[in-house]
């Protein structure tokens, strides 16, 4: 069989070799004609397919749907105080017993903290819109909903709606973007779980300099009654300046100063000052070391028995996070109340000094959109039932962001 194949091949080859030039020309012409025929057929086909393509629904708006993402956050918690005791905890001088809002990881056992629906879309060439619908197991809340300009000159940008203030480093970040599941104690103590988040307007400007400099001012309602809360009129004004320099290719330093000035009654003022510093050293393509710290001080004017006086309170947190690769990271944080010049007579006989907290965490991200985090915290800031009670908590949390969820800010 093989032999006959070889023979016929040989025969063919010799046949072709003897064909004269004329025959080749004829063959060429034939092929040219065939190609032309194919070309016309192809043209007809492409015309046809163009014709069939255009049968879209006349009024379909699918292409204009906003980016929609679902963010789910849940946890399993082990804690050495029971739930009732934990709900009635106090942070001396800041949060009275039973007055704390605890929307995240409150229960021993299982918690579904929230399901958030995040939306983003361009409105037109001039505005973008963002919304974060925060759904607790039995409450719906508009976490944020605001419009933002995209086309103002001179690097100006205006934001209006309900939004998280850009005060400090941490304030504007959503819970799912924090490095640790717990809010820093000083933020929780001064502003509660939502931080400074309110209806208002914001104006930001980026300087045309080599070094990054950004300045912003905000006018907000000031409804957060942990520090502000004058209900008769809008009362909160926030201003900040942030700057960043790179040292070499790998180290970037970001620093900021912030001020929030509001009223806690129609007459009494509250001022909160903040300084923040973040250093990030890139160790490799997916590896980095981040050291982030913030110090906040609040001067709150309150009525006394004879005249008003100013309560001065302050605290800080400092955290170090080591990103090993794109799957694993770990970190530690230290929280402390550093100043607490207030009337603490309600805590007579209780040691209210040295209020601080230690936290450590290990994180595993199988994919950029999902995250498992194991953390341990030793919290020495709480008074429960008239006694100082240090709390140990071990927690495993799961966070996912599914759908069209945009990248996070730095």
């Amino acid at each position, binding site marked *: 069989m093989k032999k006959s194949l070889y023979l016929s091949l040989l025969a063919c080859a010799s046949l072709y070799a003897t064909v004269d030039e004329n025959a080749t020309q004829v063959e060429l012409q034939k092929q040219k004609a065939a190609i032309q025929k194919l070309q016309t057929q192809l043209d007809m086909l492409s015309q046809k397919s163009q014709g069939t393509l255009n049968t879209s629904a006349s009024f379909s708006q699918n292409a204009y749907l906003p980016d929609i993402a679902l963010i789910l956050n849940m946890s399993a918690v082990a804690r050495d105080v029971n739930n009732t005791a934990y709900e009635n905890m106090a942070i001396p001088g800041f949060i009275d017993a039973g007055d704390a809002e605890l929307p995240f990881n409150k229960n021993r056992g299982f918690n579904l903290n929230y399901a958030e629906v995040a939306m983003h879309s*361009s409105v037109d*060439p001039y505005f*973008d819109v963002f919304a974060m619908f925060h759904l607790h197991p039995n409450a719906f809340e508009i976490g944020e909903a605001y419009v*933002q300009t*995209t*086309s*103002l*000159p001179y*690097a*100006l*940008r205006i934001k209006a709606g309900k939004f998280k203030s850009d005060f400090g480093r941490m304030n504007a970040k959503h819970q799912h973007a924090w490095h640790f599941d717990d809010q820093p104690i000083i933020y929780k103590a001064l502003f509660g779980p939502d931080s400074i988040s309110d209806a208002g307007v914001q104006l*930001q*400007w*980026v*300087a*045309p*300099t*080599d*070094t*990054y*400099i*950004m300045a912003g001012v905000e006018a907000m309602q000031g409804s957060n009654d942990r520090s502000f809360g004058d209900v008769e009129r809008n009362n909160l004004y926030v201003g900040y300046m*942030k700057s*960043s*320099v*790179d040292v070499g*290719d790998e180290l*970037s330093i*970001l620093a900021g100063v912030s001020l929030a000035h509001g009223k806690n009654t129609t007459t009494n003022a509250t001022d909160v000052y903040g300084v923040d510093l973040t250093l*990030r050293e*890139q160790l*490799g*393509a*997916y590896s*980095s070391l981040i050291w982030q710290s913030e110090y906040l001080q609040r001067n709150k004017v309150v009525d006394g028995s004879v005249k008003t006086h100013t309560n001065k309170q302050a605290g800080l947190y400092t955290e170090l996070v080591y990103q090993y*690769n*794109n*799957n694993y990271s770990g970190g530690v944080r230290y929280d402390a109340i550093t100043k607490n010049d207030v009337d603490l007579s309600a805590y007579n006989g209780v040691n209210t000094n040295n209020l601080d907290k230690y936290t450590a965490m290990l994180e595993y991200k*199988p*994919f*950029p*959109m999902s995250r498992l985090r194991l953390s341990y915290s030793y919290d020495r800031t709480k008074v429960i039932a008239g006694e100082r009670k240090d709390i140990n908590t071990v927690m495993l949390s799961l966070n996912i962001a*599914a759908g069209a969820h*945009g*990248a*996070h*800010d*730095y």
Partner: protein
Amino acid sequence: MKKIILLTVLLTTLVFAQLNVDTTYSTLGAVAKKIGGDNVKVVVLGSPKYDPHFIVPKPSLLSKLRRADLLIINGGGLELGWLPPLLRNANNAKIRNGAKGFLDMSHFVPMIDVPTSVSRAFGDVHAQGNPHYSTDPHNVLIMAEAIAKKLAQIDPEHEAQYQKNLADFTKEWQAYLTKYDANMQMCQTKKVVQYHELFNYFLKRYNIKSYGNIEPLPGIAPSSRHTLALIQIMRENGVKTILQDVYHERKTAKFIADKTDARVAIIPHDLGAEGSQTLQEFYNKIANRICK
């Protein structure tokens, strides 16, 4: 006197008024420099040392974007994980998406590997197709033409200059490509595996077949089961070259190389990733290291 000073100041600013052109990656930047010449100042945002999907959005990049007259992006979803927040916070109306100073290069390059269905269950798949088109030297001229057209649009005063630069560069590049393609004819490597599908455009252009990836799915770290399966495929098909990029871990590639008697070739994905200074050096390095 005052008038003269004013005039000189004005003139000098006119003479030295360069367009600030930001590009997200370095190959785009080098092409922009070729076409823009002395009329542009090119700033590259993403370092070629790192994974182009995950450039760290350092605040210093904001001050660069703030002053840009033109932003050229790779597109195809490659910048999705880092650029949008920077663009929002740089407050530069000139380069917002949709403005005259925003150029998405992927709108000009014919994309390959466009998936018919997209789900994150398949990993980090780009819906618009494979965005790593700049590894194919034939795409450089497409970029050059799009950039020349865009520069002429935002800086019509220097249109003739940009046209001339384009013509010169086209001539230079076509000559280079002729030589390059001839050399690639001689390339002995016909079968490879890669870490991530970074080099598909190059491989397709020069008929080199890729038999699989070290990562089981795009953006997912290697697993032992997948690695063993890949070793099996390489043995069955006689694949002797592993294309490793500069930013992923190299342990897995080395392990596979040991088991299959293959060679690990470190291939730059972008200009400068392995020390190349010019476009030609960059593409030469790809060819030399793949073909060896």
